[in-house]
Protein backbone atom coordinates (compact mmCIF):
# COMPACT_ATOMS: atom_id res chain seq x y z
CA UNK A 1 0.00 0.00 0.00
CA UNK A 2 2.80 2.41 0.85
CA UNK A 3 4.36 1.83 -2.53
CA UNK A 4 1.10 2.42 -4.35
CA UNK A 5 0.49 5.57 -2.31
CA UNK A 6 3.93 6.87 -3.17
CA UNK A 7 3.30 6.29 -6.84
CA UNK A 8 -0.05 8.09 -6.65
CA UNK A 9 1.48 11.01 -4.82
CA UNK A 10 4.42 11.04 -7.21
CA UNK A 11 2.18 11.14 -10.26
CA UNK A 12 0.12 13.97 -8.79
CA UNK A 13 3.24 16.00 -8.04
CA UNK A 14 4.70 14.99 -11.36
CA UNK A 15 1.88 16.66 -13.27
CA UNK A 16 3.15 19.98 -11.92
CA UNK A 17 6.67 19.22 -13.12
CA UNK A 18 5.09 18.18 -16.41
CA UNK A 19 3.41 21.57 -16.73
CA UNK A 20 6.71 23.40 -16.21
CA UNK A 21 8.44 20.98 -18.59
CA UNK A 22 5.71 21.71 -21.12
CA UNK A 23 6.37 25.44 -20.80
CA UNK A 24 10.08 24.83 -21.47
CA UNK A 25 9.39 22.47 -24.38
CA UNK A 26 7.01 24.91 -26.09
CA UNK A 27 9.71 27.57 -26.10
CA UNK A 28 12.49 25.18 -27.05
CA UNK A 29 10.49 23.95 -30.03
CA UNK A 30 9.81 27.41 -31.36
CA UNK A 31 13.05 29.23 -30.64
CA UNK A 32 15.67 26.58 -29.70
CA UNK A 33 16.16 28.36 -26.40
CA UNK A 34 15.77 26.98 -22.88
CA UNK A 35 13.97 29.64 -20.89
CA UNK A 36 15.80 29.58 -17.57
CA UNK A 37 13.72 32.59 -16.55
CA UNK A 38 10.62 30.37 -16.48
CA UNK A 39 11.06 29.76 -12.75
CA UNK A 40 11.18 33.50 -12.13
CA UNK A 41 8.24 34.24 -14.41
CA UNK A 42 5.93 31.75 -12.73
CA UNK A 43 7.12 32.98 -9.33
CA UNK A 44 6.18 36.59 -10.16
CA UNK A 45 2.78 35.64 -11.55
CA UNK A 46 2.07 33.47 -8.51
CA UNK A 47 2.94 36.39 -6.25
CA UNK A 48 0.55 38.59 -8.24
CA UNK A 49 -2.24 36.07 -7.65
CA UNK A 50 -1.27 35.75 -3.97
CA UNK A 51 -1.28 39.55 -3.58
CA UNK A 52 -4.78 39.76 -5.06
CA UNK A 53 -6.27 36.79 -3.23
CA UNK A 54 -4.57 36.78 0.15
CA UNK A 55 -3.70 40.43 0.67
CA UNK A 56 -6.65 42.04 -1.09
CA UNK A 57 -9.31 39.40 -0.61
CA UNK A 58 -10.04 38.77 -4.27
CA UNK A 59 -11.73 35.59 -5.40
CA UNK A 60 -9.32 32.65 -5.89
CA UNK A 61 -10.38 32.17 -9.50
CA UNK A 62 -9.84 35.84 -10.27
CA UNK A 63 -6.32 35.49 -8.89
CA UNK A 64 -5.68 32.39 -10.98
CA UNK A 65 -6.94 33.99 -14.19
CA UNK A 66 -4.98 37.20 -13.59
CA UNK A 67 -1.82 35.17 -12.95
CA UNK A 68 -2.24 33.23 -16.18
CA UNK A 69 -2.90 36.39 -18.20
CA UNK A 70 0.05 38.13 -16.55
CA UNK A 71 2.12 35.11 -17.54
CA UNK A 72 1.14 35.58 -21.17
CA UNK A 73 2.11 39.24 -21.12
CA UNK A 74 5.40 38.55 -19.34
CA UNK A 75 6.32 35.78 -21.78
CA UNK A 76 5.43 37.80 -24.85
CA UNK A 77 7.24 40.93 -23.67
CA UNK A 78 10.31 38.89 -22.75
CA UNK A 79 10.49 37.39 -26.22
CA UNK A 80 10.08 40.76 -27.93
CA UNK A 81 12.44 42.84 -25.82
CA UNK A 82 15.08 40.48 -24.48
CA UNK A 83 15.18 37.31 -26.53
CA UNK A 84 14.69 38.61 -30.07
CA UNK A 85 18.02 40.52 -30.11
CA UNK A 86 20.06 37.45 -29.08
CA UNK A 87 18.03 34.81 -30.87
CA UNK A 88 20.40 34.32 -33.78
CA UNK A 89 23.64 34.92 -31.89
CA UNK A 90 25.85 32.36 -30.13
CA UNK A 91 23.76 29.87 -28.10
CA UNK A 92 25.42 31.05 -24.90
CA UNK A 93 23.84 34.50 -25.14
CA UNK A 94 20.17 33.59 -24.65
CA UNK A 95 21.18 31.32 -21.76
CA UNK A 96 22.84 34.26 -20.02
CA UNK A 97 20.00 36.64 -20.83
CA UNK A 98 17.33 34.33 -19.42
CA UNK A 99 19.44 33.67 -16.33
CA UNK A 100 19.82 37.42 -15.89
CA UNK A 101 16.06 37.77 -16.12
CA UNK A 102 15.66 35.01 -13.50
CA UNK A 103 17.89 36.93 -11.07
CA UNK A 104 16.13 40.21 -11.86
CA UNK A 105 12.64 38.80 -11.37
CA UNK A 106 13.63 37.21 -8.05
CA UNK A 107 15.13 40.49 -6.89
CA UNK A 108 12.05 42.44 -7.94
CA UNK A 109 9.77 40.01 -6.12
CA UNK A 110 11.92 40.35 -3.02
CA UNK A 111 11.76 44.14 -3.26
CA UNK A 112 7.97 44.15 -3.53
CA UNK A 113 6.92 41.24 -1.35
CA UNK A 114 9.97 40.63 0.85
CA UNK A 115 11.95 37.44 1.36
CA UNK A 116 9.86 35.94 4.13
CA UNK A 117 7.61 32.91 4.02
CA UNK A 118 3.91 33.29 3.29
CA UNK A 119 1.15 30.80 2.62
CA UNK A 120 -1.21 30.71 -0.33
CA UNK A 121 -4.09 28.44 0.65
CA UNK A 122 -5.52 26.43 -2.25
CA UNK A 123 -9.18 26.53 -3.28
CA UNK A 124 -9.70 22.85 -2.54
CA UNK A 125 -8.98 20.79 0.54
CA UNK A 126 -5.55 19.29 1.13
CA UNK A 127 -7.03 16.52 3.30
CA UNK A 128 -6.28 13.09 1.95
CA UNK A 129 -9.05 10.82 0.73
CA UNK A 130 -9.87 7.71 2.73
CA UNK A 131 -10.89 4.40 1.25
CA UNK A 132 -12.25 2.34 4.14
CA UNK A 133 -9.62 2.73 6.84
CA UNK A 134 -6.87 3.26 4.28
CA UNK A 135 -5.50 6.74 3.66
CA UNK A 136 -4.84 7.49 -0.01
CA UNK A 137 -2.16 10.14 -0.59
CA UNK A 138 -4.45 12.11 -2.85
CA UNK A 139 -6.56 15.14 -2.00
CA UNK A 140 -9.25 17.24 -3.68
CA UNK A 141 -6.56 19.85 -4.34
CA UNK A 142 -4.39 17.33 -6.16
CA UNK A 143 -7.43 16.11 -8.08
CA UNK A 144 -7.94 19.69 -9.23
CA UNK A 145 -4.23 19.96 -10.14
CA UNK A 146 -4.30 16.81 -12.25
CA UNK A 147 -7.50 17.86 -14.00
CA UNK A 148 -6.23 21.39 -14.64
CA UNK A 149 -2.99 20.13 -16.18
CA UNK A 150 -4.88 17.58 -18.30
CA UNK A 151 -7.25 20.29 -19.54
CA UNK A 152 -4.29 22.49 -20.49
CA UNK A 153 -2.68 19.57 -22.30
CA UNK A 154 -5.89 18.90 -24.21
CA UNK A 155 -6.29 22.57 -25.10
CA UNK A 156 -2.70 22.79 -26.32
CA UNK A 157 -3.17 19.64 -28.37
CA UNK A 158 -6.27 21.08 -30.04
CA UNK A 159 -4.56 24.41 -30.62
CA UNK A 160 -1.42 22.96 -32.17
CA UNK A 161 -2.82 19.99 -34.05
CA UNK A 162 -6.27 21.18 -35.05
CA UNK A 163 -6.26 24.93 -35.54
CA UNK A 164 -4.84 27.08 -38.35
CA UNK A 165 -3.04 29.18 -35.74
CA UNK A 166 -1.36 26.07 -34.35
CA UNK A 167 -0.33 25.04 -37.85
CA UNK A 168 1.23 28.47 -38.36
CA UNK A 169 3.06 28.19 -35.05
CA UNK A 170 4.41 24.75 -35.85
CA UNK A 171 5.49 25.82 -39.33
CA UNK A 172 7.31 28.83 -37.83
CA UNK A 173 9.10 26.61 -35.35
CA UNK A 174 10.16 23.95 -37.83
CA UNK A 175 11.09 26.10 -40.81
CA UNK A 176 10.84 29.84 -40.29
CA UNK A 177 12.01 30.78 -43.77
CA UNK A 178 9.51 28.61 -45.61
CA UNK A 179 6.80 29.75 -43.23
CA UNK A 180 7.49 33.39 -44.06
CA UNK A 181 7.33 32.65 -47.78
CA UNK A 182 3.90 31.14 -47.14
CA UNK A 183 2.76 34.38 -45.54
CA UNK A 184 3.14 33.39 -41.88
CA UNK A 185 4.24 36.24 -39.61
CA UNK A 186 6.92 34.18 -37.89
CA UNK A 187 7.97 36.86 -35.40
CA UNK A 188 4.40 37.14 -34.14
CA UNK A 189 4.16 33.35 -33.82
CA UNK A 190 7.31 33.22 -31.70
CA UNK A 191 6.00 35.95 -29.40
CA UNK A 192 2.73 34.08 -29.11
CA UNK A 193 4.60 30.85 -28.36
CA UNK A 194 6.50 32.47 -25.49
CA UNK A 195 3.27 33.95 -24.17
CA UNK A 196 1.47 30.60 -24.26
CA UNK A 197 4.37 28.82 -22.59
CA UNK A 198 4.52 31.37 -19.80
CA UNK A 199 0.75 30.92 -19.31
CA UNK A 200 1.24 27.21 -18.70
CA UNK A 201 4.08 27.99 -16.31
CA UNK A 202 1.95 30.56 -14.47
CA UNK A 203 -0.77 27.99 -13.91
CA UNK A 204 1.77 25.52 -12.51
CA UNK A 205 3.09 28.20 -10.17
CA UNK A 206 -0.26 28.99 -8.58
CA UNK A 207 -1.08 25.30 -8.29
CA UNK A 208 2.15 24.28 -6.57
CA UNK A 209 2.09 27.24 -4.18
CA UNK A 210 -1.08 25.80 -2.64
CA UNK A 211 0.33 22.36 -1.98
CA UNK A 212 2.50 23.40 0.99
CA UNK A 213 2.20 26.06 3.67
CA UNK A 214 4.84 28.81 3.67
CA UNK A 215 5.59 28.27 0.01
CA UNK A 216 5.56 31.92 -1.04
CA UNK A 217 9.18 33.07 -1.22
CA UNK A 218 11.04 34.42 -4.27
CA UNK A 219 13.51 31.51 -4.20
CA UNK A 220 11.06 28.74 -3.38
CA UNK A 221 10.27 28.12 -7.04
CA UNK A 222 13.88 27.33 -8.07
CA UNK A 223 13.46 23.58 -7.49
CA UNK A 224 10.32 23.61 -9.64
CA UNK A 225 12.40 24.99 -12.53
CA UNK A 226 15.09 22.35 -12.03
CA UNK A 227 12.53 19.53 -11.73
CA UNK A 228 10.68 20.81 -14.78
CA UNK A 229 13.91 21.10 -16.72
CA UNK A 230 14.88 17.55 -15.79
CA UNK A 231 11.46 16.34 -16.89
CA UNK A 232 11.82 18.19 -20.19
CA UNK A 233 15.29 16.71 -20.79
CA UNK A 234 14.04 13.20 -20.02
CA UNK A 235 11.29 13.85 -22.53
CA UNK A 236 13.81 14.93 -25.12
CA UNK A 237 13.09 18.70 -24.98
CA UNK A 238 11.23 18.49 -28.28
CA UNK A 239 8.15 16.51 -27.44
CA UNK A 240 5.16 17.73 -25.37
CA UNK A 241 4.15 14.13 -24.69
CA UNK A 242 7.71 13.37 -23.62
CA UNK A 243 7.59 16.35 -21.25
CA UNK A 244 4.52 14.94 -19.52
CA UNK A 245 6.03 11.46 -19.32
CA UNK A 246 9.23 13.01 -17.98
CA UNK A 247 7.33 15.04 -15.39
CA UNK A 248 5.48 12.02 -14.05
CA UNK A 249 8.71 9.98 -14.04
CA UNK A 250 10.56 12.62 -12.03
CA UNK A 251 7.62 12.93 -9.62
CA UNK A 252 7.43 9.21 -8.92
CA UNK A 253 11.19 8.65 -8.64
CA UNK A 254 11.42 11.60 -6.28
CA UNK A 255 8.72 10.17 -3.96
CA UNK A 256 10.30 6.71 -3.93
CA UNK A 257 13.75 8.08 -3.11
CA UNK A 258 12.27 10.43 -0.52
CA UNK A 259 10.63 7.52 1.19
CA UNK A 260 13.23 4.78 0.87
CA UNK A 261 16.43 6.83 1.12
CA UNK A 262 15.97 10.25 2.66
CA UNK A 263 13.75 13.24 2.06
CA UNK A 264 16.39 15.89 2.76
CA UNK A 265 18.17 15.96 -0.56
CA UNK A 266 15.60 16.17 -3.37
CA UNK A 267 17.82 18.52 -5.33
CA UNK A 268 20.65 15.99 -5.25
CA UNK A 269 18.37 13.25 -6.62
CA UNK A 270 17.39 15.47 -9.48
CA UNK A 271 21.02 16.13 -10.30
CA UNK A 272 21.74 12.39 -10.26
CA UNK A 273 18.68 11.56 -12.37
CA UNK A 274 19.71 14.17 -14.91
CA UNK A 275 23.32 12.99 -14.88
CA UNK A 276 22.35 9.36 -15.43
CA UNK A 277 19.84 10.17 -18.16
CA UNK A 278 22.30 12.36 -20.01
CA UNK A 279 25.09 9.79 -19.66
CA UNK A 280 22.88 7.16 -21.24
CA UNK A 281 21.16 9.36 -23.82
CA UNK A 282 22.81 12.77 -24.28
CA UNK A 283 19.70 14.04 -26.05
CA UNK A 284 17.11 12.70 -23.61
CA UNK A 285 15.25 9.44 -23.33
CA UNK A 286 12.35 10.15 -25.64
CA UNK A 287 14.11 12.21 -28.31
CA UNK A 288 13.74 10.98 -31.83
CA UNK A 289 16.16 13.22 -33.65
CA UNK A 290 19.61 14.36 -32.74
CA UNK A 291 20.13 18.00 -31.89
CA UNK A 292 20.21 19.87 -35.16
CA UNK A 293 23.58 21.16 -36.18
CA UNK A 294 23.35 24.34 -38.16
Amino acid at each position, binding site marked *: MTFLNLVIYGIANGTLYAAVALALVLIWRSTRIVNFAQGGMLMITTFIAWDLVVKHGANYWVGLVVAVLAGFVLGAVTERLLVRPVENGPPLNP*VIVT*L*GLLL*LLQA*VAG*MIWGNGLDSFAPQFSLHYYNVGDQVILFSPDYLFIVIAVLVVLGALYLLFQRSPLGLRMRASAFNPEVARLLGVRVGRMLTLGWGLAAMVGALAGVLIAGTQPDYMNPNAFDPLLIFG*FTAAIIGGLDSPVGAVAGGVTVGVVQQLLDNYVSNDIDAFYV*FMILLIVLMVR*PNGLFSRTAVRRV
Partner: protein
Amino acid sequence: MRLVDRASWQRVPMVLRHGVPAVAGLGIMLLVSQGLSEYRNTQLATIAMYVCAVAGLTILTGLSGQISLGNGAFMFVGAYTVALLLEHHVTTSNGVLALFLVVAVLVAAFAGALVGVAAARLRGPYLAGITLALAVGLPVLPKYSHLQSSLGGHAGISVNAPAPPGDMNYFRWQAWLCLIAAAITLFLLANLSSSRVGRAFRAVRDDEIAASLAGLPVARVQVLAFVVSAACAGLAGGLFGILSLTVLPDLFSLTLSLALLAAAVFGGLGTLSGAVYGSVIITLLPFWSSDLARALSLPDKVQHNLPQAVYGVGLILGMLLFPLGIHGLVRRVGQLGRNTLRTKPANN
Protein backbone atom coordinates in the same frame (compact mmCIF):
# COMPACT_ATOMS: atom_id res chain seq x y z
CA MET B 1 58.06 51.94 -32.03
CA ARG B 2 55.23 49.98 -30.41
CA LEU B 3 55.57 47.17 -32.90
CA VAL B 4 59.22 46.72 -32.07
CA ASP B 5 58.37 46.68 -28.42
CA ARG B 6 55.73 44.05 -28.89
CA ALA B 7 57.93 41.82 -31.02
CA SER B 8 60.83 41.87 -28.60
CA TRP B 9 58.37 41.38 -25.74
CA GLN B 10 57.13 38.26 -27.44
CA ARG B 11 60.63 36.80 -27.53
CA VAL B 12 60.75 36.88 -23.73
CA PRO B 13 60.02 33.39 -22.37
CA MET B 14 56.36 32.98 -21.48
CA VAL B 15 57.00 32.13 -17.84
CA LEU B 16 58.78 35.46 -17.41
CA ARG B 17 56.29 37.38 -19.51
CA HIS B 18 53.45 36.34 -17.21
CA GLY B 19 55.57 35.89 -14.10
CA VAL B 20 56.89 39.44 -13.94
CA PRO B 21 53.45 41.11 -13.96
CA ALA B 22 52.09 38.52 -11.55
CA VAL B 23 54.89 39.07 -9.03
CA ALA B 24 54.84 42.84 -9.53
CA GLY B 25 51.07 42.99 -9.21
CA LEU B 26 51.14 40.82 -6.12
CA GLY B 27 53.87 42.98 -4.57
CA ILE B 28 51.91 46.16 -5.19
CA MET B 29 48.70 44.68 -3.78
CA LEU B 30 50.52 43.39 -0.68
CA LEU B 31 51.94 46.88 -0.13
CA VAL B 32 48.50 48.41 -0.69
CA SER B 33 46.99 46.09 1.88
CA GLN B 34 49.43 47.55 4.46
CA GLY B 35 47.72 50.89 4.19
CA LEU B 36 44.15 49.59 4.28
CA SER B 37 41.74 49.35 7.19
CA GLU B 38 40.61 45.94 8.46
CA TYR B 39 37.29 46.48 6.70
CA ARG B 40 38.99 47.25 3.37
CA ASN B 41 41.35 44.31 3.79
CA THR B 42 38.37 41.99 4.13
CA GLN B 43 36.98 43.38 0.89
CA LEU B 44 40.36 42.95 -0.78
CA ALA B 45 40.49 39.34 0.41
CA THR B 46 36.99 38.70 -0.93
CA ILE B 47 37.86 40.18 -4.31
CA ALA B 48 41.00 38.04 -4.58
CA MET B 49 39.02 34.96 -3.53
CA TYR B 50 36.45 35.59 -6.27
CA VAL B 51 39.21 36.23 -8.81
CA CYS B 52 40.34 32.60 -8.40
CA ALA B 53 36.86 31.24 -9.19
CA VAL B 54 35.92 33.73 -11.89
CA ALA B 55 39.26 33.34 -13.70
CA GLY B 56 38.67 29.58 -13.91
CA LEU B 57 35.13 30.08 -15.16
CA THR B 58 36.12 32.65 -17.75
CA ILE B 59 38.71 30.23 -19.15
CA LEU B 60 36.09 27.50 -19.36
CA THR B 61 33.32 29.57 -20.91
CA GLY B 62 35.28 32.14 -22.85
CA LEU B 63 38.11 29.97 -24.11
CA SER B 64 36.70 26.46 -24.46
CA GLY B 65 33.12 27.59 -25.08
CA GLN B 66 31.46 25.44 -22.42
CA ILE B 67 29.08 27.07 -19.99
CA SER B 68 28.97 26.19 -16.33
CA LEU B 69 26.28 27.42 -14.01
CA GLY B 70 27.62 25.09 -11.35
CA ASN B 71 30.99 26.42 -10.25
CA GLY B 72 29.48 27.37 -6.90
CA ALA B 73 29.18 23.62 -6.33
CA PHE B 74 32.92 23.18 -6.82
CA MET B 75 33.47 26.02 -4.37
CA PHE B 76 31.30 24.00 -1.99
CA VAL B 77 33.59 21.00 -2.50
CA GLY B 78 36.72 23.06 -1.85
CA ALA B 79 35.27 24.79 1.20
CA TYR B 80 34.08 21.60 2.87
CA THR B 81 37.39 19.86 2.09
CA VAL B 82 39.37 22.57 3.88
CA ALA B 83 36.87 22.76 6.75
CA LEU B 84 36.94 18.98 7.30
CA LEU B 85 40.74 18.79 7.10
CA LEU B 86 41.08 21.60 9.62
CA GLU B 87 38.53 19.93 11.88
CA HIS B 88 40.31 16.58 11.89
CA HIS B 89 43.90 17.84 11.84
CA VAL B 90 44.05 20.91 14.01
CA THR B 91 47.07 22.91 12.94
CA THR B 92 48.79 26.16 13.78
CA SER B 93 51.01 26.11 10.73
CA ASN B 94 50.21 28.23 7.69
CA GLY B 95 52.26 25.83 5.62
CA VAL B 96 49.86 23.03 6.49
CA LEU B 97 46.96 25.34 5.64
CA ALA B 98 48.48 25.92 2.21
CA LEU B 99 48.79 22.17 1.82
CA PHE B 100 45.11 21.79 2.74
CA LEU B 101 44.21 24.34 0.08
CA VAL B 102 46.14 22.27 -2.45
CA VAL B 103 44.15 19.21 -1.34
CA ALA B 104 40.94 21.23 -1.81
CA VAL B 105 42.05 22.06 -5.33
CA LEU B 106 42.72 18.40 -6.07
CA VAL B 107 39.40 17.20 -4.65
CA ALA B 108 37.49 19.85 -6.58
CA ALA B 109 39.44 18.98 -9.73
CA PHE B 110 38.46 15.34 -9.25
CA ALA B 111 34.80 16.32 -8.84
CA GLY B 112 35.21 18.48 -11.94
CA ALA B 113 36.58 15.51 -13.86
CA LEU B 114 33.56 13.40 -12.89
CA VAL B 115 31.11 16.04 -14.03
CA GLY B 116 33.30 16.97 -16.98
CA VAL B 117 33.19 13.46 -18.40
CA ALA B 118 29.40 13.72 -18.56
CA ALA B 119 29.50 17.35 -19.63
CA ALA B 120 31.88 16.86 -22.52
CA ARG B 121 29.18 15.02 -24.42
CA LEU B 122 26.65 17.76 -23.81
CA ARG B 123 25.99 20.95 -25.66
CA GLY B 124 24.32 24.29 -25.03
CA PRO B 125 21.16 23.98 -22.99
CA TYR B 126 21.87 20.43 -21.85
CA LEU B 127 25.21 21.48 -20.41
CA ALA B 128 23.68 24.59 -18.85
CA GLY B 129 20.93 22.46 -17.34
CA ILE B 130 23.12 19.77 -15.82
CA THR B 131 25.46 22.34 -14.30
CA LEU B 132 22.45 24.25 -12.98
CA ALA B 133 21.24 21.04 -11.35
CA LEU B 134 24.75 20.57 -9.97
CA ALA B 135 24.73 24.06 -8.45
CA VAL B 136 21.45 23.34 -6.68
CA GLY B 137 21.92 19.63 -6.04
CA LEU B 138 25.42 19.22 -4.61
CA PRO B 139 25.40 21.78 -1.77
CA VAL B 140 22.34 20.11 -0.17
CA LEU B 141 24.37 16.96 0.59
CA PRO B 142 25.28 18.02 4.17
CA LYS B 143 21.54 18.00 4.90
CA TYR B 144 21.38 14.26 4.14
CA SER B 145 20.53 12.56 7.42
CA HIS B 146 23.42 10.08 7.28
CA LEU B 147 25.94 12.80 6.52
CA GLN B 148 24.66 15.30 9.05
CA SER B 149 26.98 14.18 11.82
CA SER B 150 30.08 14.49 9.65
CA LEU B 151 29.06 17.50 7.53
CA GLY B 152 27.15 19.45 10.12
CA GLY B 153 23.75 19.65 8.46
CA HIS B 154 22.09 23.06 8.14
CA ALA B 155 24.34 24.62 10.75
CA GLY B 156 27.52 23.64 8.90
CA ILE B 157 31.03 23.27 10.37
CA SER B 158 33.29 25.97 11.71
CA VAL B 159 36.60 26.53 9.97
CA ASN B 160 39.46 26.48 12.49
CA ALA B 161 42.09 28.24 10.44
CA PRO B 162 45.51 28.72 12.09
CA ALA B 163 46.40 32.13 13.49
CA PRO B 164 48.39 34.58 11.36
CA PRO B 165 52.19 34.12 11.53
CA GLY B 166 53.98 36.41 13.97
CA ASP B 167 52.00 39.41 15.08
CA MET B 168 50.41 40.04 11.70
CA ASN B 169 46.98 41.60 11.68
CA TYR B 170 44.30 38.91 11.19
CA PHE B 171 42.46 40.71 8.37
CA ARG B 172 45.67 41.62 6.54
CA TRP B 173 46.71 37.98 6.81
CA GLN B 174 43.41 36.99 5.13
CA ALA B 175 44.04 39.49 2.36
CA TRP B 176 47.61 38.23 1.82
CA LEU B 177 46.49 34.64 1.71
CA CYS B 178 43.85 35.35 -0.93
CA LEU B 179 46.07 37.70 -2.95
CA ILE B 180 48.86 35.12 -3.15
CA ALA B 181 46.34 32.48 -4.23
CA ALA B 182 44.86 34.81 -6.86
CA ALA B 183 48.31 35.75 -8.21
CA ILE B 184 49.29 32.09 -8.54
CA THR B 185 45.96 31.28 -10.22
CA LEU B 186 46.23 34.14 -12.72
CA PHE B 187 49.87 33.29 -13.48
CA LEU B 188 49.08 29.64 -14.16
CA LEU B 189 45.97 30.42 -16.19
CA ALA B 190 47.79 33.05 -18.27
CA ASN B 191 50.45 30.47 -19.14
CA LEU B 192 47.82 27.86 -19.85
CA SER B 193 45.88 30.23 -22.06
CA SER B 194 48.86 31.07 -24.27
CA SER B 195 50.15 27.51 -24.33
CA ARG B 196 49.24 24.70 -26.71
CA VAL B 197 46.45 23.71 -24.36
CA GLY B 198 44.92 27.19 -24.58
CA ARG B 199 45.06 27.05 -28.35
CA ALA B 200 43.36 23.66 -28.22
CA PHE B 201 40.60 25.17 -26.04
CA ARG B 202 40.01 27.91 -28.62
CA ALA B 203 40.10 25.50 -31.53
CA VAL B 204 37.46 23.31 -29.89
CA ARG B 205 35.33 26.35 -29.09
CA ASP B 206 35.46 27.73 -32.62
CA ASP B 207 34.74 24.54 -34.51
CA GLU B 208 34.59 21.14 -32.87
CA ILE B 209 34.51 19.21 -36.10
CA ALA B 210 37.47 21.05 -37.57
CA ALA B 211 39.37 20.59 -34.30
CA SER B 212 38.77 16.85 -34.28
CA LEU B 213 39.76 16.61 -37.95
CA ALA B 214 42.97 18.41 -37.04
CA GLY B 215 43.68 15.59 -34.60
CA LEU B 216 42.63 17.24 -31.33
CA PRO B 217 41.00 14.88 -28.81
CA VAL B 218 37.93 17.13 -28.46
CA ALA B 219 36.31 15.36 -25.53
CA ARG B 220 39.57 15.24 -23.55
CA VAL B 221 40.20 18.92 -24.19
CA GLN B 222 36.70 19.77 -22.95
CA VAL B 223 37.06 17.64 -19.82
CA LEU B 224 40.40 19.29 -19.14
CA ALA B 225 38.83 22.76 -19.35
CA PHE B 226 36.17 21.61 -16.90
CA VAL B 227 38.80 20.25 -14.52
CA VAL B 228 40.77 23.49 -14.65
CA SER B 229 37.73 25.60 -13.84
CA ALA B 230 36.64 23.24 -11.07
CA ALA B 231 40.14 23.33 -9.54
CA CYS B 232 40.09 27.14 -9.51
CA ALA B 233 36.62 27.10 -7.94
CA GLY B 234 37.91 24.61 -5.34
CA LEU B 235 40.70 26.98 -4.35
CA ALA B 236 38.25 29.87 -4.14
CA GLY B 237 35.94 27.69 -2.05
CA GLY B 238 38.71 26.84 0.42
CA LEU B 239 39.48 30.56 0.81
CA PHE B 240 35.74 31.33 1.02
CA GLY B 241 35.49 28.91 3.96
CA ILE B 242 38.45 30.54 5.73
CA LEU B 243 36.96 34.03 5.19
CA SER B 244 33.49 32.93 6.31
CA LEU B 245 34.72 31.10 9.47
CA THR B 246 31.83 28.63 9.02
CA VAL B 247 30.80 26.64 5.97
CA LEU B 248 27.12 25.80 5.58
CA PRO B 249 24.98 24.66 2.64
CA ASP B 250 23.14 27.95 2.24
CA LEU B 251 26.38 29.82 1.46
CA PHE B 252 26.55 27.94 -1.82
CA SER B 253 23.24 28.98 -3.32
CA LEU B 254 22.37 29.14 -6.98
CA THR B 255 22.87 32.88 -6.68
CA LEU B 256 26.57 32.32 -5.89
CA SER B 257 27.05 30.28 -9.06
CA LEU B 258 25.20 32.85 -11.10
CA ALA B 259 27.19 35.67 -9.51
CA LEU B 260 30.38 33.98 -10.73
CA LEU B 261 28.94 33.81 -14.23
CA ALA B 262 27.84 37.43 -13.94
CA ALA B 263 31.37 38.45 -12.95
CA ALA B 264 32.86 36.61 -15.92
CA VAL B 265 30.35 38.21 -18.29
CA PHE B 266 30.74 41.70 -16.79
CA GLY B 267 34.50 41.53 -17.12
CA GLY B 268 34.43 40.08 -20.60
CA LEU B 269 34.33 36.32 -21.19
CA GLY B 270 37.68 34.66 -21.76
CA THR B 271 39.88 37.46 -20.42
CA LEU B 272 41.78 37.20 -17.14
CA SER B 273 41.84 40.97 -16.61
CA GLY B 274 38.07 40.82 -17.08
CA ALA B 275 37.90 38.25 -14.27
CA VAL B 276 39.53 40.82 -11.98
CA TYR B 277 37.13 43.62 -12.99
CA GLY B 278 34.15 41.28 -12.59
CA SER B 279 35.30 40.12 -9.14
CA VAL B 280 35.70 43.71 -7.98
CA ILE B 281 32.15 44.42 -9.11
CA ILE B 282 30.44 41.44 -7.49
CA THR B 283 32.33 42.03 -4.26
CA LEU B 284 31.67 45.73 -3.96
CA LEU B 285 28.17 45.75 -5.44
CA PRO B 286 26.42 44.77 -2.19
CA PHE B 287 28.33 47.53 -0.35
CA TRP B 288 27.57 50.11 -3.02
CA SER B 289 23.92 49.19 -3.16
CA SER B 290 23.50 49.35 0.60
CA ASP B 291 25.22 52.77 0.57
CA LEU B 292 22.89 53.87 -2.19
CA ALA B 293 19.85 52.45 -0.46
CA ARG B 294 20.81 54.24 2.76
CA ALA B 295 21.37 57.50 0.90
CA LEU B 296 17.94 57.23 -0.70
CA SER B 297 16.49 55.74 2.51
CA LEU B 298 15.01 52.80 0.62
CA PRO B 299 13.21 50.09 2.60
CA ASP B 300 15.23 47.12 3.83
CA LYS B 301 13.74 44.63 1.42
CA VAL B 302 14.67 46.84 -1.53
CA GLN B 303 18.19 47.31 -0.23
CA HIS B 304 18.55 43.60 0.41
CA ASN B 305 17.59 42.70 -3.16
CA LEU B 306 19.34 45.51 -4.99
CA PRO B 307 22.64 43.71 -5.72
CA GLN B 308 20.82 40.75 -7.25
CA ALA B 309 18.71 43.08 -9.38
CA VAL B 310 21.92 44.69 -10.63
CA TYR B 311 23.40 41.26 -11.46
CA GLY B 312 20.29 40.47 -13.44
CA VAL B 313 20.16 43.75 -15.32
CA GLY B 314 23.93 43.56 -15.84
CA LEU B 315 23.74 40.08 -17.37
CA ILE B 316 20.94 41.13 -19.71
CA LEU B 317 22.41 44.46 -20.75
CA GLY B 318 25.87 42.94 -20.93
CA MET B 319 24.63 40.45 -23.52
CA LEU B 320 22.46 42.93 -25.42
CA LEU B 321 24.80 45.91 -25.45
CA PHE B 322 28.38 45.03 -24.45
CA PRO B 323 29.07 41.39 -25.32
CA LEU B 324 32.80 42.01 -24.77
CA GLY B 325 32.32 43.26 -21.21
CA ILE B 326 34.47 45.74 -19.34
CA HIS B 327 37.65 44.29 -20.79
CA GLY B 328 36.35 45.09 -24.27
CA LEU B 329 35.32 48.57 -23.17
CA VAL B 330 38.71 49.29 -21.64
CA ARG B 331 40.46 48.06 -24.74
CA ARG B 332 38.26 50.16 -27.00
CA VAL B 333 38.90 53.27 -24.96
CA GLY B 334 42.61 52.44 -25.01
CA GLN B 335 42.58 52.03 -28.78
CA LEU B 336 40.69 55.29 -29.18
CA GLY B 337 43.32 57.03 -27.08
CA ARG B 338 46.17 55.49 -29.08
CA ASN B 339 44.51 56.36 -32.38
CA THR B 340 44.13 60.01 -31.45
CA LEU B 341 47.74 60.09 -30.27
CA ARG B 342 48.85 58.53 -33.48
CA THR B 343 46.82 60.73 -35.82
CA LYS B 344 47.78 64.00 -34.16
CA PRO B 345 51.32 64.26 -35.60
CA ALA B 346 49.94 63.38 -39.04
CA ASN B 347 47.56 66.33 -38.84
CA ASN B 348 50.30 68.79 -38.02
